[in-house]
């Protein structure tokens, strides 16, 4: 009869395989994604000049009363280009307003980028030195925050927003928050 203790190494091996299986099957990017401590906290306040209207400012209080997305982007950010068509489509559908946080970018580069690929944003706030980015715990563009009517961060998506993430996670959450 095979003794139970000889099965122990096999058992340990299977547990390790299980860990690898779960981790390696996660979609690209989510493995490195860090949970944000800002979830369910008030979105940090800021007041930044707008990209297209440098004399006008944007502050999160301006979006109070609606559910909105804050999308951190930059013209130098390659993955931003990847998610861009998804944001364009979302903007066309008009399901939720997208505000841009233009992160550590040059004004003219950003403007050119939007002119070239299209502008899905209600407006973009210019965070030239990345200070606001630090307040939001940004560690790599693109990042997208779902902010509710009261200005509380409800969700953070790190990396490019895929159609999958949008339809299965972000939009259902937005709909739920709209109701409250």
């Amino acid at each position: 009869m095979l003794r139970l203790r000889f099965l122990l190494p096999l058992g340990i091996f299977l547990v390790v395989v299980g860990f690898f299986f779960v981790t390696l099957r996660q979609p690209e990017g989510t493995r490195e994604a860090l949970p944000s401590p800002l979830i369910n906290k008030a979105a940090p306040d800021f007041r930044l000049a707008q990209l297209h209207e440098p004399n006008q400012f944007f502050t999160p209080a301006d979006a109070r009363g609606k559910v909105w997305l804050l999308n951190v982007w930059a013209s130098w950010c390659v993955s931003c280009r990847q998610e861009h068509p998804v944001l364009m489509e979302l903007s066309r559908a008009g399901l939720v307003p997208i505000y841009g946080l233009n992160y550590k970018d040059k004004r003219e580069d950003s403007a050119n980028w939007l002119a070239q690929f299209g502008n899905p944003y209600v407006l973009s706030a210019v965070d030239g030195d990345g200070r606001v980015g630090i307040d939001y715990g940004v560690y790599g563009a693109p990042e997208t925050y779902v902010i509710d009517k009261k200005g509380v961060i409800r969700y953070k998506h790190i990396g490019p927003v895929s159609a999958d993430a949008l339809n299965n996670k972000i939009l259902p959450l937005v709909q739920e928050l709209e109701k409250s």
Partner: protein
Amino acid sequence: MKHILFALMLGLAPLAVTAGEAQPTNNDPALEKRVMALSAELRCLVCQNQSLADSHAELAIDLRNEVRDMMKSGKSDAEVVDYLVARYGDFVRYRPPMNTTTALLWFGPLILAVIGAGVLFFNLMKRRRRVAETALTDEERKRAAALLNDGAGETKA
């Protein structure tokens, strides 16, 4: 006169601009040492296996500057760490704090050691019992005595 003044102001303008730039890092060796010491305890979020002190990622440089600015304004190391943890989470610390999610990390090795010691103790007790229970028969006793007294005796047979 007005023009000269204007030209003078124009000429001085670049000085005003550079005044706001980051100071050379070797300006205050004591401060710099403190910045680097604390940075070595903090993880770079971009290249997650490097510390803030090691990393040349742009965010790491920004965060080091942030740390330096906070220290300059008289913040303690703990306050600087709290500031970063509030934004980036416990992950930013190389020494994780103890809470429910990190309990296994902290106590896992101890639990494994206890289990190991338990298994060892259990096996030793079992062996001692087995040794104690094994009594020799008269035949074995005779053979043992023969072997001890005359090493050649038994092996030749």
